[in-house]
């Protein structure tokens, strides 16, 4: 199939969507489709899709909106939630039909009440993920919780979700993830063809677009890029440093531009809006609700869930080995307790394993971006990189 566009124009399309989520929601609503937003992370979008609604991740942020939440949320809570609520208050999400907030920390646990009070949508739900993941009770409970969410969605959408519809949605999502993984692997080998900003925007836009359309676009992109690799057209910019990233989200997004400009490639991460989002699939055999739960327990560990002792450390160390990363860059949002609790031990364990690591603290609508630039540059220089 001949390519309709060139890679650059596909990146441009993605960038536009990320830059203006409100316009994107408007565009999507032109059809009769109902849109259900979800707050990161780990909401089973497949269920929303199977119910016939369009899931949209609340992942593209608008810095000036933070201040709008000030009368409702203390300034010492994380800027991710302050920004999301601020955007809602400013009307950015007025076209949503519903919103699902997973309880993954004290802030998400509390924000639902505030949100319902200040900006209710017709459908609102707290998705209550289990926080312990090692014991059998967790799996039974999660299957039940998936069932509860399914029933609520069915009621809201006034239809039943059949097992085969859910399986179809799972397949669609798995396929989308598998292509993104291919792109990611191409990105880690050939960042000069697919840099950090474009790769991570591809992941972000997959949360903001109908999966079918996104899959078509990235399949086309993959084809073009693979051809370039085959034709040995991989010259251009040099990337000398390989970084593994860790944190809740890669905000502010300028971080990826900074890495691109400094010649550092992100070879993996445990961001909820990054590689972790695409790292693993839902098993396509068996009872689909059970499969959705199974995926949850095999996802990359993050601070929200208490797993086998040291799991996250081991997982990061393993990823460093597999990706041949030169070091780990932690990107932590100010006031994000789960990350802040994990950090000191992660830092010490990585250092004890001889893995250089560095933490930057970010805040949406906070510090000027130049600050991060200098900090990251210092770290990269210490790794012997720099362009």
């Amino acid at each position, binding site marked *: 199939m001949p390519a309709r566009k060139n890679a650059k124009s596909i990146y441009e399309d993605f960038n536009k969507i990320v830059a203006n989520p409100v316009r994107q929601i408007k565009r999507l609503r032109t059809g009769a489709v109902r849109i259900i937003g979800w707050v990161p992370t780990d909401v089973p979008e497949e269920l929303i899709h199977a119910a016939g609604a369009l899931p949209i991740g609340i992942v593209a942020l608008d810095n000036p909106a933070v201040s709008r939440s000030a*009368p*409702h*949320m*203390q300034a*010492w*809570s994380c800027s991710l939630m302050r920004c999301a609520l601020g955007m809602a208050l400013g009307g950015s999400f007025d076209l949503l039909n519903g919103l699902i907030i997973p*309880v993954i*920390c*004290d*802030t998400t*646990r*509390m*924000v*639902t*009440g*505030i949100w*319902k*009070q*200040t900006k209710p949508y017709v459908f609102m739900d*707290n998705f*209550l993920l*289990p*926080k*312990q993941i090692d*014991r*059998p*009770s*967790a799996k*039974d*409970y999660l299957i*039940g*919780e998936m069932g*509860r969410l399914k029933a609520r969605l069915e009621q809201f959408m006034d239809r039943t979700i059949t097992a085969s519809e859910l399986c179809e949605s799972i397949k669609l999502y798995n396929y989308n993830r598998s292509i993104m993984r291919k792109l990611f692997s191409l990105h880690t080998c050939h960042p000069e063809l697919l840099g950090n900003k474009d790769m991570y925007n591809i992941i972000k836009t997959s949360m903001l677009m109908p999966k079918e359309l996104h899959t078509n676009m990235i399949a086309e992109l993959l084809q073009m890029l693979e051809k370039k690799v085959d034709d040995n057209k991989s010259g251009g910019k040099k990337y000398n440093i390989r970084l593994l990233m860790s944190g809740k989200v890669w905000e502010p997004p300028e971080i990826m531009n900074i890495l691109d400009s400094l010649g550092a490639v992100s070879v993996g991460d445990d961001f909820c809006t990054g590689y972790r989002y695409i790292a693993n699939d839902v098993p396509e055999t068996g009872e689909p609700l059970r499969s959705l739960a199974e995926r949850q327990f095999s996802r990359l560990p993050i*601070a*929200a869930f*208490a797993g086998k*002792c*040291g799991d996250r450390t081991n997982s990061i160390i393993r990823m460093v080995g597999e990706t041949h990363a030169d070091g780990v860059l932690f990107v932590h949002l*100010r*006031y994000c*307790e*789960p990350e*802040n*609790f*994990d*950090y*000191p*031990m992660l*830092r010490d364990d990585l250092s004890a394993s001889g893995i250089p690591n560095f933490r930057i603290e970010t805040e949406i609508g906070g510090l000027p971006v130049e600050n991060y630039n200098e900090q990251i540059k210092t770290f990269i220089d210490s790794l012997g990189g720099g362009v």
Partner: protein
Amino acid sequence: MIESPSFKTTNLFKRMMAEYLERGVAAKEKGIPIAWVTATFPVEIIYAAGLFPYYPENFGARIAAKKVAAAISAAAEKQGYFPDLCAYARCGIGNAFSIKRPVGEVLKPDVVFCSNAQCGSLQKWFEAAGRYYQVPFFLIDTPLIENTPTTLIKRYIVDQLHELLDFLELYTGNTFNFSRLAEVISLSNEACRLWNEILEMAALKPAPFGYFDACYHLAPIVAWRGTKWAVDYYKELKKELEERLDNKVYVIPDERYKLYFDHIPVWPRLRWFSNLLLERKALAVASQYTHAWAWRFDLNRPLESLVKNHTEVFINRGYEYRLEQKISLMNEFKVDGFILFSNRSCKPKALGLYDKYNIISERTGLPGVIFEADMSDERYFNEEYIKKLFGEFFDRLEREST
């Protein structure tokens, strides 16, 4: 306890607390496992299994009351723990890294039990402690109960209690003793009943006992619930309060106002706040915090009943439920105004309070005040700002009640 003639029971409290801590040290020496537990963990099971339960949160509160939270926290901050984390956690962690230990050393755990019904901070803090001390960490995961508790959640937690019993049997090498559990639960019931009766005395006008006293006398209902100790302690306290009533001894003899105080107190400023209210003849009489332990257990269904009480606690409830509970306490105690504390240590209590302030004002018509501070860390305490806020609040209270 503060300005009123001091309670005899306060001395008893000090003696028993010292003895409890000594017992912990002795238990450790004898090889009885020290089990860290959280305030809403079903400690009855730990007592019944013969372990020694220890409350790092209580340790944190003691550090705070001694006004040394900032110094102890500094030791944790030096390790990379951030000053915006819950101060109890910072102090518990800080103690492990400190050389100076003004309230002694936190008792090292042999096993760490945690319920996240209160907050995610405990989950993270205890998980870190399990790794630091290299001991097992067992989490009872308690999903938020927004409105009515669902069968799904109840079943999940009962399943986890069974897993806990399995864990304990393997850990201790003994089969779990359900008749011992029944004894422990009866003692819990008795202590909770007494605690409730004591709290209710604050509704009398003038009252012999108020919220700040309750904060002082709260530790036994949390830590010794399920033991004869707690029962004996609250019998003594209740007896003393009854004597006070007979002798007409009140916290504020010419008490003018009753107030609702939401949340934990500012520990290092307990007396300061009590005096601030006293100057305007106002007594804080009720709080979701102190009322959280007024439980009743059903001996016929011990596990289900432990689940019910420990997981349906206010802090694990949704926005509207908590709001209604605050208002119903305000009604029950016939308060004239309310105080909300936006505690930066405690997001699960503080987030949403500004909207709640407006809603409570609207629904009750009562004057209120909301202030920013930290329950432990005086670096976040601005005396002038609070005096000014409270001055305005009291002026409104006076205007509106005349």
